[in-house]
């Protein structure tokens, strides 16, 4: 599949922002101080907001984007839009309450945390619901999106705690690296599934000509690349897939993990670790699209 920058940035930035928001609403960071409040809210809304804005950039008609909120009964993309708008509004209320009245009762925040989780799940289901892209159509796809969001969000929270000079309990310290490891274990399993998957559809089933023997493409239907090929037949990444996978694990998992375990309270080093984590997830997301094969590419002679 064609890896559009706008969509890659959308899924990685809003995923991280939503994860951060969940930990903030759970009360991990003390927002009593105005500067803390300012930094945390800018980061949370900045990540989610720019992610969502970026997702509208690849549309043919961004001015009609509001229409995408209407078909939540059938469409995961619509559900994601509705949930994102709802979560952003409730987060605004939550932060406003915090600023004007004081800290929001923990129990009142829990439904919001749940909605944040469902929003990330809905983002992943836009892709996981597509039967035409076999490697996406798998339960590990939402698992990876959720784990990257929750672990990245926690790493971001730990960095903000370090910036604010706040302390944390040791359970949170252990949870942070455990979640990071878990996220990348899930991703490695996802890649294993991608590599081992045997194709359900073949050129024989696509043409119905299997009874005559092996089917080969003879002539393409057009002389230059069309929309289907540029959108669904992206091949550049697959040549370097292994190198890119290793790079994403090193940048997104291994190095941030080592830095966090060694210097859990250093704001500068954690900032660097968070940046590297974002780069690693960005590469991972790029591969998520670039490595994925669409069933229509069968008609253009590509093995699944």
């Amino acid at each position, binding site marked *: 599949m064609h890896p559009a920058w706008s969509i890659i940035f959308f899924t990685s930035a809003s995923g991280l922002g939503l994860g951060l928001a969940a930990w903030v609403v759970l009360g991990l960071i003390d927002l009593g101080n105005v500067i803390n409040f300012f930094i945390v809210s800018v980061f949370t809304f900045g990540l989610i907001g720019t992610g969502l804005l970026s997702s509208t950039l690849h549309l043919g008609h961004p001015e009609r984007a509001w229409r995408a909120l*209407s078909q939540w009964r059938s469409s995961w993309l619509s559900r994601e839009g509705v949930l994102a708008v709802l979560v952003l509004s409730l987060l605004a209320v939550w932060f406003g309450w915090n600023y004007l009245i004081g800290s929001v009762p923990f129990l009142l925040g829990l439904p919001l945390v749940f909605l944040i989780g469902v929003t990330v799940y809905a983002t992943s289901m836009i892709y996981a619901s597509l039967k035409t892209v076999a490697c996406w159509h798998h339960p590990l796809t939402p698992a990876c999106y959720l784990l990257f969001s929750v672990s990245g969000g926690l790493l971001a929270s730990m960095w903000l705690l370090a910036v604010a000079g706040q302390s944390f309990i040791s359970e949170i310290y252990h949870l942070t690296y455990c979640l990071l490891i878990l996220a990348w274990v899930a991703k490695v399993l996802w890649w294993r599934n991608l590599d081992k998957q045997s194709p359900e559809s073949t050129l024989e089933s696509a043409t119905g000509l*299997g009874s005559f023997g092996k089917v080969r493409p003879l002539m393409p239907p057009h002389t230059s690349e*069309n*929309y289907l090929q540029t959108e669904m037949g992206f091949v550049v990444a697959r040549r370097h897939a292994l190198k890119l996978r290793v790079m994403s694990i090193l940048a997104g998992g291994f190095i941030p993990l080592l830095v966090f375990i060694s210097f859990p309270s250093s704001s500068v080093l954690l900032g660097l670790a968070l940046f590297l984590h974002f780069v690693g997830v960005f590469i991972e997301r790029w591969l998520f699209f670039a490595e994925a094969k669409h069933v*229509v590419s069968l*008609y253009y002679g590509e093995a699944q």
Partner: protein
Amino acid sequence: MTSLPEPSAIKLGLVIDLDLCVGCQACVVNCKEWNTSGYGAPLSDDNAYGANPNGAWLNRVHAFEAGDAEDAKTVHFPKSCLHCEDAPCVTACPTGASFKRAEDGIVLVNEDWCIGCGLCAWSCPYGAREMDPVEGVMKKCTLCVDRIYNDNLPKEDQIPACVRTCPTNARHFGDLGDPNSDVSKLVSARDGFDLLPEQKTKPVNKYLPPRPRRQKDETPMSLVAMAEAQTPKGFWKWMDATLERLG
């Protein structure tokens, strides 16, 4: 609404005969011609006369080779929207622009609502939808909904443009929901099949397989043997004999 309607009794669609298609591309061109000048935004091309032209077409004819060596078959393979009963492109649409008509099962796009997100094209296993490079909206086969119900056209033109133009009669249009229709009878007589049945889209359009090759003769015909067996007559007999005498 992008939720699918209850399956309609009338299921309008195409039956494509892979035995007859010669890959002339006439259906492709007539489809483009009709749909660029009819309803909605024109079916545009980008850089049409440049080095790398790109455009939206609703019907494409591939060619495949099936089988090996002397048994290999060349099959010309037209492909357009199959107006699936369980159309994944419809349910994926976030805006309600994509819909399946409850009355006859035709899958259409309301271009004024389409945001051009492309998710419907991602959901379609057949590559039936193409983004218009100029308008930024999704284009697809309408089954010539503006011809088949158009009383301003002569009766013989009230069929899809691709069917009307096919010089070999490889394309048929009709109600596949009615078991007694001509197209349904054709499908059952010729063992018509679905493309990618495992994708569970329940396509309405059906394809008819190429007919098996006629029995091959045991010994191939030899032109040399045929020439030697011939005994010339008349003028050729005289010339043969004269040339022989000349030594």
